[in-house]
């Protein structure tokens, strides 16, 4: 995949890419960015530099290349525009998107640190295999964002892809505070049932994908052991063949096949990592889905608070106007005990209240609109996400089955070869 990163347009649904769902379900009517522009993350390089606390550090940067689609369609082959960005910049972009489009299930980034590793794989961020898989993951992220009907039109995204800019850092401060709000706990009275169900589903998706990833890593570990131990046969057959006359040749060659068998597991498991990456993408997607549901709860909560506040203010006004105290209030008590206030004060207070009520009504109207917009937009995008997920995961499972078949065929081949050798003993 690294080799053809440059020329391949992932928009054509290259089957190597995990972003296999980039066809009619994602690229909708209206021009998404991907239709107009070819995007790829072509390379990765190590850099050294000083970080924010003036300490020397090594990090990896990724080359983002873009080319206008119409030029390619016309057969011209212009040189791509390119710029280098590091992982943390991708993170900033994503946080910005999360905050700006709270009702969209924002595509996830590849994992920051290697997790769910089986023992042979290194958990080191600088490991070339890890970097390579991350490059692919980042490209996948950009392609998904650029083919989203709403996200792809974002200006900041465009700048991210085409300009070296500092505009991202400004956004990061607001992003942090709003993200923090998402993790606060609060009780909502009337959340939209569909969102409650979706949140529950997102928990399930997260739990199942992470369980699967862990189980798969353990299986990979064990399978590795089985294959590698067979390599010992190679050695002992070779030693044994030295003391045999007629049996020697057959044993020796069979031994070589056992060695080949033991060696074959490395490639097999390397390939399986792609499957694991696809699962991981949806593990992180589950989080994004959950975030949309949480955002709904937040806006609904704020609406409920605002409504509640308005109701209580209106009540206060009524009490003030009619002098009838319906509910207990401290002011009411003190009034009773120490006598009522002067009419001018009452007037002033009433006026203030009216202003507050007017503000409150505006606020409620705003929040209701915001809530409705969020619910509508969120529901549409969640449906879109569901379709994409079903399609992608189904394909991932089919590809997994194909991988297993290939592994079985290799196994049959090796053992048949060994059997030939044994028959010649």
């Amino acid at each position: 995949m690294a080799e053809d990163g440059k020329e391949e347009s992932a928009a054509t649904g290259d089957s190597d890419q995990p972003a296999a769902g980039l066809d009619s379900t994602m690229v909708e009517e209206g021009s998404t960015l991907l239709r107009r522009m070819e995007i790829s993350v072509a390379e990765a390089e190590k850099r050294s530099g000083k970080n924010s606390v003036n300490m020397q550090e090594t990090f990896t940067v990724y080359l983002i290349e873009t080319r206008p689609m119409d030029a390619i369609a016309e057969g011209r082959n212009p040189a791509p525009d390119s710029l280098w960005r590091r992982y943390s910049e991708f993170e900033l972009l994503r946080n910005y998107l999360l905050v700006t489009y709270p009702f969209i299930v924002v595509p996830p980034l590849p994992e920051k640190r290697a997790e769910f590793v089986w023992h042979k794989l290194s958990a080191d961020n600088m490991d070339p295999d890890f970097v390579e898989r991350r490059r692919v993951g980042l490209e996948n992220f950009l392609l998904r964002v650029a083919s989203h009907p709403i996200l792809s039109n974002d200006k900041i995204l465009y700048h991210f892809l085409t300009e070296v800019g500092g505009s991202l850092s400004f956004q990061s401060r607001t992003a942090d505070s709003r993200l923090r709000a998402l993790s606060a706990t609060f009780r909502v009275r009337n959340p939209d049932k569909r969102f409650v169900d979706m949140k529950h589903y997102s928990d399930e998706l997260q739990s199942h994908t992470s369980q699967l990833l862990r189980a798969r890593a353990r299986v990979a570990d064990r399978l590795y052991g089985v294959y590698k131990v067979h390599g010992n046969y190679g050695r002992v057959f070779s030693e044994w063949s030295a003391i045999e006359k007629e049996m020697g040749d057959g044993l020796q060659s069979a031994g070589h096949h056992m060695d080949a068998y033991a060696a074959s597991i490395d490639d097999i498991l390397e390939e399986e990592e792609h499957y694991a990456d696809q699962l991981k993408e949806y593990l992180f997607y589950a989080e994004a889905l959950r975030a949309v549901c949480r955002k709904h709860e937040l806006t609904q909560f704020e609406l409920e608070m605002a409504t509640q506040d308005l109701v209580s203010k209106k009540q206060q006004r009524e009490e003030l106007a009619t002098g009838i105290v319906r509910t207990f209030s401290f002011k009411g008590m003190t009034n009773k005990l120490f006598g009522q206030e002067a009419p001018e004060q009452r007037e002033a207070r009433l006026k203030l209240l009216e202003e507050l009520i007017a503000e409150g009504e505006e606020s409620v109207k705003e929040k209701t609109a915001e809530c409705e917009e969020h619910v509508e937009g969120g529901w549409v995008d969640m449906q879109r996400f569901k379709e994409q997920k079903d399609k992608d995961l189904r394909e991932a499972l089919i590809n997994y089955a194909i991988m297993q078949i290939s592994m079985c065929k290799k196994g049959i081949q090796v053992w048949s070869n060994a059997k030939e050798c044994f028959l010649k003993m």
Partner: protein
Amino acid sequence: MSVGAPRGLASSGQKPITEILHPLSAADEPPLSPVPDVTVGGHNPSSGAADKDAGLTNGTPVETSSPASASSLFNRLQLDDEPDADAEAEADAHDPYASTETRDLFVTVDDPKKHVSTMETYITYRVSTKTTRIEFDLPEYSVRRRYQDFDWLRIKLEDSQPTHLIPPLPEKFVMKGVVDRFSEEFVETRMKALDKFLKRVADHPVLSFNPHLNAFLSAKDLNKRQGLALLTKVGESVKQVAGGYKLRARPAEFCAMGEYLDTFCQKLGTIDRIAQRILKEQTEYLTELREYGAVYSSWAGSEDELRRPLEGVAGSVSSCCGALEDLSENMSQDFLPVLREYVLYTDSMKNVLRKRDQSQAEYEGRLEAAVLRRQEDRTPVPVEVEKCQDKVECFNADLKADWERWQSNKRQDFKQLLTGMADKNIHYYEKCQAAWESLIALLQDKQTEDKTNETN
């Protein structure tokens, strides 16, 4: 059923052997028909070949290439060349109707049964014999024997044929707490080993004519056969030899044999350890694989569109688990026991080599003493010394013949064992491949189904 032989004979000799139908003559009968229990009382081994002379082989003269041995070898080679032969096919290989002009003794061990008495519980096996040899009164026998009886036979053979390699028996003692002596697998494995033992003895050109074998195969009640009047050569027999004899010069070929056996034994041990390790890894892999499949199932529960694909994957994983179980079982039931039995066989061979060394040492010792005496007082070399020399030469000849046979058998046995192992692995992968291919077929059907629904 019976090929016309009179049943229930109280004693031998009622019908001359020439009138009893040759087992091969009943060409339409199925090969391994169950033989009824034939009561034979008061049977005496007709050959009466009591060992007269220490160390000389009884019965047939020693020939390295007697017709019986060459052809039985040939038969073995022919039969074992079948590609799908595995250990069990050995039993089927002794088809009396297949290339049999020179084979005249066929034995089988099968049908294990548990016997419970107040004193003990034990297993007996049916030992069936078909033969045209004149040394046997009847053409067919079927008796029940227990492990003890096989061991008795082995000891008797070792005693009466000290210059020959006696095939080994499976291990006598098993740790009571560790292995279930009455479990199906254990009994099955042991039975196969006993069958192999008996077949090897029956195929041996010299051992197969041993009267103890005759008794073992035909006598109704073995243990009570004290009156068989066979001399046990305790005085002459050398059981486990401690070794360490000072030899003038061990002939090179026997040195080579010894070295070969040492290395071979070592390699067998290594292979055993590797196979066990593989089994262990496979078991752990199986455990993880099962859990892995279960996760797919549980995930399917929370999906709708993806339910079928996920359940499909869980199903395929489960099929692979089953296939793996079969493979592992096979390795531990068939592969490992045969491997271990060869270690025992190698030990037996080594033992025979030691006995040969001892016999040569004895001869050299006596010769030296005799030469010294002759030098002193002109006493001629006594007859015993000459006999010793004969003994050594016979021993060497027997050993060489047995060695060749052993080597040839070893080659066939290992060819069979290893191709069997390869076959089992191939079958395992074939089963797994089928499981995954059926999943893809299932999913792709659904896909085309969906597509037609979409376009409608």
